[in-house]
């Protein structure tokens, strides 16, 4: 189990990114499937799993592509500016 995965346990679901929530959901399901858990722990995991699933599905459903441009300013300074998707005219 990587450090990242351990760090995610018990973290508020709504603060997780999609990737974090997905990794945590996978871990939760794996732990459930391992078996040998107390009834209380099983239900705890299940409830967390449901919340994580909801978080993932929500992020996936609401996501809107962000488009940015990487530009070079004077003196070689890099700058990122937001651009609108589907509207890339210079």
């Amino acid at each position: 189990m990587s450090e990242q995965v351990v760090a995610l346990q018990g973290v508020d679901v709504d603060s997780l990114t999609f990737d974090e929530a997905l990794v945590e959901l996978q871990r939760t399901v794996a732990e459930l499937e391992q078996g040998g858990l107390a009834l209380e722990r099983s239900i705890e995991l299940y409830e967390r799993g449901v919340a994580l699933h909801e978080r993932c599905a929500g992020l996936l459903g609401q996501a809107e592509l962000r488009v940015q441009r990487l530009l070079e300013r004077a003196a070689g300074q890099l700058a990122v500016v937001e651009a609108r998707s589907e509207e890339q005219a210079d």
Partner: protein
Amino acid sequence: MSRSGPPQSEPLWGDFPVDGSAATSDGSRPPDWALPSWDSIPADETEPAPPSPAPAQAPARAERAGSDAAQQPRPEPAGGFALRILQVSEVTRAVRDAVRAEDGLRDVWVEGEVGRVTVSSAGHAYFTLKDERSQLACVFFRDDRLSSLFEPRTGLRIVVHGRIDVFELQGVYQLYVAALQPAGFGDLALRFEALKARLAAEGLFDTARKRPLPIRPAVIGVATSATGAVWHDICHVVARRWPLARLLLSPCQVQGEGAAASVVEALERLARWDAQCRAEGRPEDAPDVVILARGGGSLEDLWSFNDERVVRAVGAHPVPVVSGVGHEVDVTLADFAADVRAPTPSAAAELVVPDRAEMVAVLRELARRAGVCTARVLAGGRAEVAAEGRGLERLRPSAQLAQARERAGYLLDRATRALRGEIGRRADAEQRLAARLGPVLAVQLAARRAGLERSSAALAALGPQATLDRGYAIVRRRSDGAIVRGSDQAPAGERLALRVARGEIAARVESDAGAAGRPSKRGAA
């Protein structure tokens, strides 16, 4: 001029089948310029010369071969040395024979710029090839033309392979084209192969160098032109498949003078940005993968992607690079150096991001597995409760067993509630999702929802109700709803709610239980 007498030119006809085959009489008009139209020549006129030469021909030969006395094997007619007036066809034939006898003209490669092009109704192309000082009429017969990869086009610089011959009917010499290709083509191909071999020897294209792509990139760097269809297509594909990603365009010039330098600069900009983000402790803004893309074009258009500087910039990039240059058939050295080569820019975009619809299916499967496991654990819990129930029937009920039973019942109750609540929430969430992902997905989601409802029904059957049905009750304090686990939790006067299989009973504790732990509640329905 090593050939002997003119009639011996006859076997040469075998070398010029086109003369006969092209001599059709389909009545088409000749092209509107000075060159001949083979279509308009009657077949008989292109027949070989008769075995016995026209009498007039011998003097012509004699004159031509005047400097070479040994070349007069045939007897001259009487008066053959006399000056005589030649027929036009005699002169033309003499020129033709001279041209045909010249080895250096039988197999030529000529480079020049294409002037005017005319294609006859029979499909033969007539064009001029010119340089600063001169021009050369060329004929490209239909069959060769149709099997050629390249067409002569006005203004194009080409290299032509063929032979020079004279068309007697119009008294012109021309180049009969066997094959043609753009000038510099062979040169480019040679340079391509040489550079490829050199860089391959350095190990730049080794499979071991290829890096795996991230599964779900958060930031995707794109080096391409800011104007044009390629950038638009990439935005479109990523917006459809994986809108969680962020696209970071590093604009560059992808054709014309300076394109290679511009592409290198765009790649370096992304590399510097990557380093800067990591140095500033925000790796989440650094690109996870870079797409190098350009739309289709001619060999020359794509040439900057064979530039050594570009190839090296791709190979040395700190972030995995996916190339999508040109069309499927176009392969550039940048493709070889990239970690992954995609056939087109859109394919590159498809390749770097996962598919949203597939991810929904993955999530659904995880949820299903969690549901299956939990249901199994709950079923185990129920079996335990049932075993305890049997134990209670055999032995004197002990306070500990009752507590365990009650605890199990409580957990089952909570699980059932959780599942029911989740069905509602998920129905909402999935409806929102379904509205976005379209009807196909909606069908799948509906099936999933039906599955959830079925498992919920199964879980309800496992809930405390089954236990209550067997005659047990759940005792709660009315004041705070807490479950009463010991008599000390229910002092005299405490109001209680007894949940039984069918309905609830309001009760009051009559007297303190004391230390005996003896049940002291009495129903007060």
